[in-house]
């Protein structure tokens, strides 16, 4: 605590000096946020990886080709097959495309000649084909390893331990294929149960880390699992949420019991809007049951990119006020990862998109929700999950202004994407948790592709930062 205060003092001083010409236009709040943002910002010079990210953001055709390689890699039997796909994608990326092309890719890749030559080389000779396939395969695996902490919870355990030692808590997300059969739902539930066992046993051996183990609401579990209801049941029907709710209830109840018995945290993830009613109703319904009155520690997700997210917050807060529970409810606030899917589906069906069309609207909505969640502490614990430095800094300042101690606000990052931010947060003695996908490459590919698309989307914070955009501008109010 002392350290935080002294560092904070120094940084505030810097803010006064360096930010003078901004401050007169900024509210006091924005000024404080900008100070925190600069404190947390990583190196000003983009890394090689950042530069690659920036390149991909500027070249949608190349980006599409690379994502398609990543996407198809698990389905390919051997490097030859992957090389064939790679060649075909490069050919297509090199070709200017007509009406059906996605926005932004109509001009083809700016690297068209290079890609065409590469495609021809890959496709042309048998001698070139296999090495290209092998290289592609290795690249895919290397990329996957950056995001995926291990093939199994046991395999991921050392990495989780390293994070813990670095002052970063974790939550594990088990990657897998879509659940279309009851057997697949049961298999996922069994993997979750095993994961809870493994995580609890592993975490018990970690050294104490007071900041990560308690806030003013009480103790915080070391072991944490994030679970997807849509993987527990094949009965996700947007027009009949009661089917999935009934089908997944027993499995989720078993996981809640197991988490409670292990003293672990269970977080119910949110996915696309088609499943929201099912997921949220089920989670709140089960947590209202008498047996879960005192635990486990559990949570749900609110997605700020949804136009009606504030109504969702109303609903969750009303539930938390009315629930006869001694345990807190953790609310992970995210922007949301299904923006394209939601937008396209709405477009195809003639609906008003359920998500904000402009990123700034999501960011503003996010900032409106944060103080409301913080005000509900300790009945509600807030976990702010974003890589947007402005949003993170805003939440930190909002928590301080709400009179909360650093431990009372959780900040979450994605492993592989937010590593530098996590380190910076830990160095500031803020409470940070990394969301760690676990699973094999085949299972993880859908996740991976989504993460990559998100990371290199033109307006993503990380992509913008990677281009070297001025930090001050990125920290401005959305």
């Amino acid at each position: 605590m002392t350290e935080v205060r002294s560092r904070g003092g120094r940084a505030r001083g810097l803010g006064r000096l360096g930010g003078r010409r901004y401050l007169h236009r900024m509210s006091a709040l924005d000024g404080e946020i900008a100070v925190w943002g600069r404190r947390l910002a990583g190196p000003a010079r983009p890394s090689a990886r950042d530069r690659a990210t920036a390149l991909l953001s500027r070249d949608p055709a190349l980006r599409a080709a690379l994502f398609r390689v990543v996407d198809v890699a698990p389905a390919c039997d051997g490097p030859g097959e992957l090389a064939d796909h790679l060649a075909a994608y490069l050919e297509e990326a090199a070709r200017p495309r007509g009406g059906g092309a996605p926005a932004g890719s109509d001009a083809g890749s700016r690297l068209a000649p290079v890609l065409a030559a590469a495609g021809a080389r890959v496709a042309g000779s048998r001698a070139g084909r296999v090495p290209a396939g092998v290289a592609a395969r290795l690249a895919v695996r290397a990329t996957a390893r950056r995001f995926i902490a291990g093939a199994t919870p046991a395999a991921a355990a050392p990495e989780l331990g390293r994070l813990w030692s670095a002052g970063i808590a974790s939550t594990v997300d088990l990657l897998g294929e879509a659940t279309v059969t009851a057997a697949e739902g049961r298999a996922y539930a069994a993997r979750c149960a095993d994961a809870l066992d493994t995580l609890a046993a592993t975490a018990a051996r970690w050294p104490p880390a007071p900041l990560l183990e308690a806030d003013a609401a009480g103790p915080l579990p070391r072991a944490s699992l994030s679970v997807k209801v849509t993987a527990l049941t094949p009965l996700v029907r947007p027009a009949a949420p009661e089917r999935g709710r009934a089908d997944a209830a027993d499995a989720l109840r078993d996981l809640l019991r197991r988490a409670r018995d292990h003293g672990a945290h269970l977080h119910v993830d949110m996915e696309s809007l088609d499943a929201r009613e099912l997921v949220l109703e089920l989670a709140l319904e089960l947590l209202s049951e008498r047996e879960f009155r005192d635990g486990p520690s559990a949570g749900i997700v609110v997605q700020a990119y949804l136009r009606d997210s504030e109504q969702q917050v109303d609903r969750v807060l009303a539930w938390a006020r009315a629930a006869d529970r001694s345990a807190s409810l953790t609310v992970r606030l995210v922007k949301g990862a299904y923006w394209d899917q939601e937008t396209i589906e709405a477009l195809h069906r003639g609906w008003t998109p359920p998500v904000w069309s402009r990123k700034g609207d999501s960011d503003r909505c996010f900032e409106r929700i944060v103080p409301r969640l913080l005000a509900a502490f300790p009945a509600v614990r807030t976990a702010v999950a974003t890589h947007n430095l402005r949003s993170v800094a805003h939440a930190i300042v909002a928590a301080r202004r709400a009179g909360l101690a650093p431990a009372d606000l959780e900040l979450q990052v994605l492993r592989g994407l937010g590593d530098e931010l996590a380190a910076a947060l830990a160095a500031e003695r803020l409470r940070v948790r990394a969301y760690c996908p676990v699973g094999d490459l085949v299972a993880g590919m859908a996740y991976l592709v989504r993460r990559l698309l998100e990371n290199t989307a033109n307006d993503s914070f990380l992509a913008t930062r990677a281009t070297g955009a001025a930090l001050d501008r990125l920290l401005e109010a959305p």
Partner: protein
Amino acid sequence: MSAPFRNEPLLELRRASVRDELRGALAALDARLPLEVPVAIGGERRHAPVLDSVDPGRPERVVARATVATGADVDAAVAIAAQAVGAWRDAPAGERAAVLARAAGELRGRRRELAALCVREVGKPWPEADADVAEAIDFLEFYGRQAVALEARAELEQLPGERNTLRHRGRGVAAVIAPWNFPLAIATGMTAAALAAGNAALLKPAEQSPGCALALAQALERAGLPAGLFALLPGAGEVGAALVRHPGVHTIAFTGSGAVGLEIVERAARVAPGQRHLKRVVAEMGGKNCTLVDRDADLDDAVPALLASAFGYAGQKCSATARALVHERLHAPLLERLRGALDTLSVGPADDFASDLGPLIEADARDRVEGALRDAAAAGARVDRTVGELPDDGWFVAPAVVAGAPADGAVVRAELFGPVLSVEPVRGMEEACDRVDEQSYALTGGLFSRDPRTIELVSRRTPVGNLYVNRGTTGAMVARQPFGGNRLSGTGTKAGGPDYLLQFIEPVVICENTVRHGLTFG
């Protein structure tokens, strides 16, 4: 000038409030059943109900009682239409389009009620029932705009001294013979096309769905369509046959079974005494549609898409997938996941949002499907069915996944129009294309592949009218995926596409000499 065409928004059924509205609309409709459907000709209505349409999920519930059109009704309808059509044909396309747009507005105002009617009369589950109504609206809006565009088309070469004009003139009286499976959408589509192009339209709805046809008749009337240009002629096959035979009918627009379609084509080719024109037939017939699954397919996508394509509306869409031709590497895993997924399907009343499949349309349909499955099993095929109870009442069938069905049996060859999916291994996509090529049907096809070259290969080789890549094979949208089959699946016309209206048009070219005393005035 009207706004550019946009598909009618679907209802957002994932919102609980929307579902409640639909339940309310259904309760209100139920209180009004049975509907009485008259023969309607030139503003006159004749009521003598003898033909009942029933809820296929509860056959004792009568949805509509229809009067059956007689030969005299058909003669009268044709005569009155022939009188009325001249002025309509000569009216500016914009005027015709305005009437159709108003009719679309009438349907739009009854969205929920009409979806409920589809649910009741043909056992269509809510999402598909809603899409049926939306598609009917689309056809009215789309074809009206197309008629305006056609009128504005100036496509002839012009040289000094002559003025060349191409006029698109309605052919005259069109007979529209509609199916029950899209009871509002397809009846409306064929009718709207005929009217938009400047024809009269005499509608013979399917005997299973006269109630939905009544809604179209009401919409056109309220929209101010001049009397005589539309007639509602309910009945069974004889009414359709009388229309097809009639010397005063110029165009026959038919959607239905292959057998009836071929009969119509043959019959329409004969020139009756006194008939001074050739009849044109627009026919949309059956399909035995294949979805190809290549070795690089993502089964997470393919399995749900196959389920939806094969079992949506219990397989009673002409676009439904009946066969999956699967690369041998994925055959076993795909089959295992499909069998597992089969058990997640719930068969129940169409009005229950929780039902994945409703009933089949009638007892014969059920018996045909069950018979084909028995034959396949007897021939050594493995037939997996959804477990779980079926409702006691109604024509419900448990969906089936069949492996190892005999190549010459009904499950592989015949259009069953039921929830049956045959899964067959292939060595590669070339072989799959060969199998598709053996068929005489060529309506829709599907392909799951992540290789652009495979997609190009199949696109080049497929004989089908509509190929869907990495998605299901049903749900074509007006203006976005013009729909229609080749070979024995249809006359190759594309409903909801830019050229469909030409089927209802007689083109006339006028060349006027504009030179007079060596000077040109044009």
